Each structure stands twice: as C-alpha cells, then as structure tokens.
C-alpha cells in the first residue's frame, strides 16, 4: 500500500529508535501525549512502545470521539432508536459503547430497535431514500475529520428533499479539548498533567491545518508536532519532540507534510461552517463541560436536527464511579491503574467507553499490549 508500507519499515524503525535513544538525555524523562486515538491505536498495533527508550513515555490523550462521548449522549441515542418510527444509522464503532444503564446500541438493537450500521454518510442517505416512511436519523460523531462528510450528507439530504431525515449531532473540536487538558480547573483537582509535548493529530490536521495549534503551543509553552498515523511518522515526530524539548523550543512542527498544510482543507472547512455552529459547551467524558467544544446544526438546518425534531433532552448521568476513563483520558492514569481493567471491564462487556474503540487507551492496551503487564520492561 503506497504511502503506508514505506512508513512501516522495520529497519528504518530500528535506526530511528536508536536515534531517539541517542538524543533523549538519559537523566531526563520525556512524557509526550498523543492527543489522537489514531496514534494510540498505531502505538499498540505496531508495538511502538517496545521500540522507544524507557525514558520516553507516551501518554494517551482524549483524542477518540467514541471514548469522550458521555453516556448521556448514548442514552439519548438509545431512547431515540427505541422510538418505533425511527431508524438510527450509526458507524460500527458506536455499537458497543455503554450507556448509563449498561445498555448499548447493540443490545438496544437486540431488543428490537431499528439500528443500521453504516460505513459512510452516503449509506444513511440511501437508507432514507429507500424508506421514505421512516424517520431516518444519522448518529453523527467525530472530530474535524469526520464532520465534513456529515456536512456533505446534510447538503445532499436538502437537495434530495428528504423530509424525514435528520442528524443527531455529536461532532466535537480538537483544539478546544487540548486547551481544556492544559488549562481546565477541573483537571487541577485530579493532578495537573505533566506533559512535555504533544503529538498533534494527523487527519484532523489535514482538515484544519496546523495553524490552530500555534496559539496553544505559544500559550502553554509546549511543543506540538503534527504526526502521521504510520509508525515511522510517529517515531520521527517523537524525535522532533525530543529535540524541541532538548532545545527548549515550543513550536508547532509538521511531520505529516504530505497531507497537512498550515491552512488545511478550505473546501471542507467551508462545508462545515456553512452548516454547523459552535455549541456554548459540550460534555466530554473525563473533561466535563468544555466551552465551545462541540458543533450543532445552524438554525437554517433545524429541520435536519434530530435534537429539535424529536425534542431530545440530555439527562446528565454519573459515570461508573470505579471507571477511571476520565483520569485516563486526561493522561493522569493508565489503564492498569483501573481496578476494573480486564476483570469486570473488557472489550466484550466494556464498563467505560475507553474499552470500546480500539483507539481507546484501555481497549488498545487490553487488545494489543496487556502482555507487557506481565513481563519485565525491556531496558
């Protein structure tokens, strides 16, 4: 696979690992947060941890939209899907996310709700066209990467005069969350994250560009390197972060220049800003209410807004108190620090959302990395 296989080369990786080891000062510890779940998954999937020196540690951030979705939003989706007239279209990723009652969309489906897994927003349009008598709702979720396809879909629904089609919008914004991690008073109560730098999102940045990160790097004095999702991309970016730390810099650098520019994909940005506007605040699991961090449909598209159409209301619910997802999403705890990890909570029956998506820290560690809990860390 061109533009992928080359960036998975074992020999180069070995060299890069040594380069990182050589540049990382042995008396220091480097803690880098990969904000994005795509990085979390790749780290685990390729066993990247095994390649890094012991004093370079990756902290998994909140960059998985499935993981940060609060249980209350899943509850809302379940209640919606349980309406007899509704067909709910969802990305497969969401099916096993637990709501507050231990119920998921998968179990709601088993109990009779009409829920369809789709691969693309275009599938949702097709389903709506084929069932004009049904209320077809698309469960929209995702960061800036996934929002433009939702926007295109809404424009298409408008063009096709789909009268009983709507969107349950859960799109969220990356920079707001990064800001929240670095700043939020809520976080200070648990313990301030000690992060020396960030691996910046790959595909989010392909849309928004690198520019939005500049103010963050500036304001908080942390280096940010936008990195591709292939393992060599990440290793290179880690090396770049090590160098910035060593050199006392805190700049935004772009390792993923083959797909990311400073300004991003303007056309996609416009599609999104035409249709969506900022919510005052949106709840993130682990981060609480984050101001201006979510999107909703503009008034002009209210007919497509499922929350309006079905007068949906959010009932905030407490997460399972034993679940450490919140602390893990902020990087202050690791999956093994949760006493439910691997006992009550496994990907088959996840307690928290981090155990669902393979971008979630708990799921990634369980699925790919838990053998390390039982072996001596290599030097």
């Amino acid at each position, binding site marked *: *696979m*061109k*533009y*992928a296989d*080359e*960036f998975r*080369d074992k*020999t*180069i*990786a*070995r*060299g*890069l690992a*040594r*380069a*990182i080891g*050589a540049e990382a000062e042995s008396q220091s510890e480097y803690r880098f947060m990969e904000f*994005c*779940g*795509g990085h979390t998954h790749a780290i685990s999937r390729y066993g990247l941890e095994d390649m890094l020196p012991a004093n370079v540690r990756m902290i998994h951030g909140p960059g*998985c*939209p*499935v993981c940060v979705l609060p249980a209350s939003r899943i509850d809302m989706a379940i209640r919606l899907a349980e309406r007899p007239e509704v067909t709910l279209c969802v*990305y497969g*990723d969401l099916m096993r996310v637990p709501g507050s009652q231990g119920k998921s969309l998968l179990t709601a489906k088993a109990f009779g709700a009409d829920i369809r897994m789709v*691969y*693309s*927003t*275009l*599938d949702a349009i097709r389903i709506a066209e084929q069932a004009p008598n049904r209320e077809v709702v698309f469960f929209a*979720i*995702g*960061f800036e*990467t*996934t929002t*433009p*396809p939702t926007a*295109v879909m809404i424009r298409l629904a408008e063009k096709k005069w789909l009268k009983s089609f709507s969107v349950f919008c859960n799109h969220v914004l990356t920079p707001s969350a990064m800001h929240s991690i670095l700043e939020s008073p809520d976080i200070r109560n648990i313990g301030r994250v000690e992060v020396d730098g960030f691996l910046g*999102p*790959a*595909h*989010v940045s*392909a*849309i928004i560009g690198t520019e939005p990160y500049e103010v963050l790097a500036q304001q908080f004095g942390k280096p940010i390197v936008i990195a591709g*999702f292939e393992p*060599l*991309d990440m290793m*290179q970016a880690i*090396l770049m972060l090590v160098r910035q730390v060593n050199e006392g810099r805190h700049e935004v650098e772009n*390792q993923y*220049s*083959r*797909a*990311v520019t400073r300004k991003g*994909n303007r*056309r*996609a940005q416009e*599609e999104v800003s035409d249709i969506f506007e900022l919510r005052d605040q949106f709840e993130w699991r682990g981060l609480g209410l984050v101001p201006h961090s979510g999107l909703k449909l503009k008034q002009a598209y209210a007919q497509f807004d499922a929350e309006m159409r079905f007068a949906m209301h959010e009932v905030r619910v407490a997460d399972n108190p034993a679940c450490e997802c919140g602390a893990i999403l902020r990087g202050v705890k690791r999956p093994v620090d949760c006493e439910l990890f691997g006992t009550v909570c496994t990907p088959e029956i996840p307690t928290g959302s981090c155990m669902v*998506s393979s*971008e979630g820290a708990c799921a990634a560690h369980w699925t790919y990395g838990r053998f390390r809990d039982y072996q001596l860390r290599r030097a």
Partner: protein
Amino acid sequence: MCLSVPAEVAKILPDDMAIVSIDGISKEISIALIDDLAVGDYVLVHVGYALARIDPAEAERTLQLLQELGSEGQDLQS
C-alpha cells in the same frame, strides 16, 4: 475516529464521486470535499470520502529524511 487510508484516484465519476484503488481493490467514494482531483492523484480516504490530497513531493521528502535518520541511528549502533 479518523481511520483513513491512502488511495489512488482511478476514475472520476459524475456527482462528485470517483473510483479509487488500493492494492488491487477499488471502491467508489465521494470527492465532494476536494477540488480538482485528477486520475493518478493519491488521496486519504475516510468514511467513504476523500479528505486530503497526498503531496508526492512532501512524501518523498519525509521518506528521505526518515531514511537518513534511520541510517544515522543504525550508524549510532554499529
């Protein structure tokens, strides 16, 4: 949430659609989010949409850098 693969544009279709191919598989996707795509371009495909064009020169540049860093590292060892 951002699973995405690089694919080559094989055919431009009407209505902002295109066929892309990846190692012997081909799939119809939307190219509504990218202007002026041409056959032979590489794009990142995410949830059935082309999200970004891949810049071959930049890719080459990164790769070369990686190779240099990699061999530097190898040299370090030896």
